């Protein structure tokens, strides 16, 4: 009963904003929600698998452009393109991550920075004549759910935070699954993980593809909210911000990442009244945090496994080998 209270309270608090907030603050919350979902998907790669990936905006871009092109050229309803956007991003991740998956630490980081820049420049250069160059693609439809047109900030609030909720539930299951544990082993010690029979390359690639799939779906929401898309959405800076959210909030901890999204996307808005000082306050906050809490605000805790309990369960049903010996004459 008491344990159920915090989630109920959170759910209640989430219901409030559309009733009391102005459009501006609703859109701030929407921006936070989009960052949060993207950060959750990045957390799978950076936090769970421990791969330094700073090019997440590239995957979001692939998804966003998939939706934009399908919706404007073929007239496919926006929300229908969402899984396709995810798949396009996932496939793209598979292609680019396969050759670089063995790179470690900073080396991987450098390559992923390259990826996001290449994607942005390719989009700006109007690749295949599909992306509309620097001006991007305009005239993207609003999403419809059962005939209901989503266009107000309050409508998007439900869409975005609904998706965030689904993301949290799915990703927290994933975290505790066989897949999630394998990623954690790889993060802690790649060699040891290989040693206990984990195919680390396949798992890492899986994390990349899944993270990209999710980022691609967020791309759909992003373009349907803006109704246009341009390469300016997917700069290197956007990738850095996502990376900062994950590291600052606490890599590998979903609560930490959510908190990170609120701080990194929300704080600059809260400091808006200080205009000139706002980036200064923001920078100072990030530096102080990294000095005093290098693991992030809510660091990921090691899993809690009761070994004694586990052994007992393992030993319980098995027949006692000694009983056989006693019968010998």
């Amino acid at each position, binding site marked *: 009963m008491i344990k159920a209270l915090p989630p109920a309270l959170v759910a209640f608090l989430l219901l409030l904003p559309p009733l009391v907030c*102005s*459009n*501006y603050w609703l*859109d*701030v919350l929407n*921006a936070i929600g989009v960052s949060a979902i993207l950060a959750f998907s990045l957390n799978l790669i950076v936090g769970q698998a421990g791969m330094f990936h700073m090019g997440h905006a590239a995957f979001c871009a692939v998804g966003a452009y998939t939706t934009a092109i399908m919706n404007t050229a073929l007239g496919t309803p926006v929300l229908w393109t969402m899984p396709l956007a995810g798949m396009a991003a996932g496939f793209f991740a598979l292609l680019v991550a396969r050759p670089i998956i063995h790179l470690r630490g900073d080396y991987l980081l450098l390559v992923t920075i390259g990826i996001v820049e290449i994607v942005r420049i390719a989009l*700006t*250069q*109007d690749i295949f004549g599909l992306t509309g*160059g*620097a*001006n*991007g693609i*305009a005239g993207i439809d609003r999403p419809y759910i059962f005939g209901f047109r989503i266009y107000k*900030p309050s409508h998007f609030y439900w869409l975005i935070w609904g998706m965030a909720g689904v993301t949290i539930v799915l990703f927290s299951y994933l975290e505790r699954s066989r897949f999630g544990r394998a990623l954690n082993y790889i993060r802690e010690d790649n060699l040891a993980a290989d040693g206990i029979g984990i195919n680390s390359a396949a798992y890492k690639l899986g994390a990349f593809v899944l993270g990209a799939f999710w980022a691609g779906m967020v791309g759909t929401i992003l373009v349907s909210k*803006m*109704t*246009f898309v*341009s*390469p*300016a*959405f997917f*700069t290197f*800076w*956007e990738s850095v911000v996502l990376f900062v959210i994950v590291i600052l909030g606490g890599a590998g901890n979903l609560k930490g990442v959510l908190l990170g999204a609120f701080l990194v996307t929300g704080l600059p*808005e809260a400091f*808006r*009244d*200080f*205009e*000139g*000082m*706002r*980036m200064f306050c923001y920078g100072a906050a990030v530096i102080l945090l990294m000095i005093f809490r290098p693991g992030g605000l809510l660091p990921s805790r090691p899993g809690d496994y009761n070994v004694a309990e586990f052994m007992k369960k393992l030993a319980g049903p098995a027949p006692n080998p000694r009983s056989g010996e006693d019968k010998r004459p």
Partner: protein
Amino acid sequence: MKKIAAMIMLALLAWAGPGGAQEIKIGLMCPLTGDWAQEGRDMQRFLEMQVEDLNAAGGIKGIPVRLIVADDGGNPRSANLAAQRLVESQVAAVVGTYGSAVTEASQGIYDEAKVVQIANGSTAIRLTEKHFTGFFRTCTRDDFQGRAVARAVTRLGFRKVALVHDNSSYAKGLAVEVEPLLQAAGVEIVYYDALTPGERDYSTIITKMKTLSPEAVVFTGYYPEAGMILRQMQEMGWKVPIIGGDATNNLTIVEIAGREAAAGYYFISPPGPQDLSGEEAKAFMAEYEAKYGQMPGSIFAVLAGDAFKALVKAITEAGSDYEAISSYLHNDLKNFDGFTGPIAFDAKGDRVGDLFRLYRIDGEGKFVLQP
């Protein structure tokens, strides 16, 4: 410190809402952070000076004007928030912003809230093709540059030209605009092709052009390639004038080509803040330079100033509600004296006429405005 205190005061005042003293609020949306922070700062300084002057002279019909600045970060996503923020502070109209994608992200919000917006640096064509009645811009559209290039070619009297682009969307777009305009003006295009940007050697393409003996070369690409072509043409002893677009308006071109080879290069560009004619503009620029120690870095801050001037005029003449301002700007503002020349808007909200001027690089490597 005083400035920060003033800002906090301003912020508190903003919260006080419409119940406070009577004033007219005008919003400025500009990039104060991000890659274009320099542009944004110039815009803010420019408008702050204008507001100061205006209020010293009694404001609009005795009502003081207050400028509310929102940082769009040069990024469509934060522009969305900046626009919501300005709408919420109940501004009568908004000036800004610089980047086209950034403006596009805010257009819908202003349109929904019925706030007039005058952009100062967003040149993408489709911004004014959406039929928002309250959207205007003081800069010219991308497709106006083609006309300016064609006009320059005919004015300089060339009848036979080579047209070269570099396949980038900007340069190709400009070349596609220019080609039919030149043909319509009776100019023969003897060579029309793209070069590969970033190479060190363009001698093949130059030799090919030379055999066709055009009177001038029109190059629509960027300054590094323009500089290389100038140098290699000089080395090959072939001297015909080259005319470029505003992507070659960069001092580095002289460094790449060398002073001697760069001399005589023509390009089309909006005037720099130091080249503005008109007594009022000159006086204001001098005042600006005296106050901040330098001129604005580009023309776009000045265009924001023009937007502000047009808004003040419209509010003075017609009142401060949406319908009144937008209808005045569309229909009644004719030949209004702006910093960058006469201002008027057409039915779409585009500025009538264009801003482009012809420049020539002189023997000293300086960019000289051609009359």
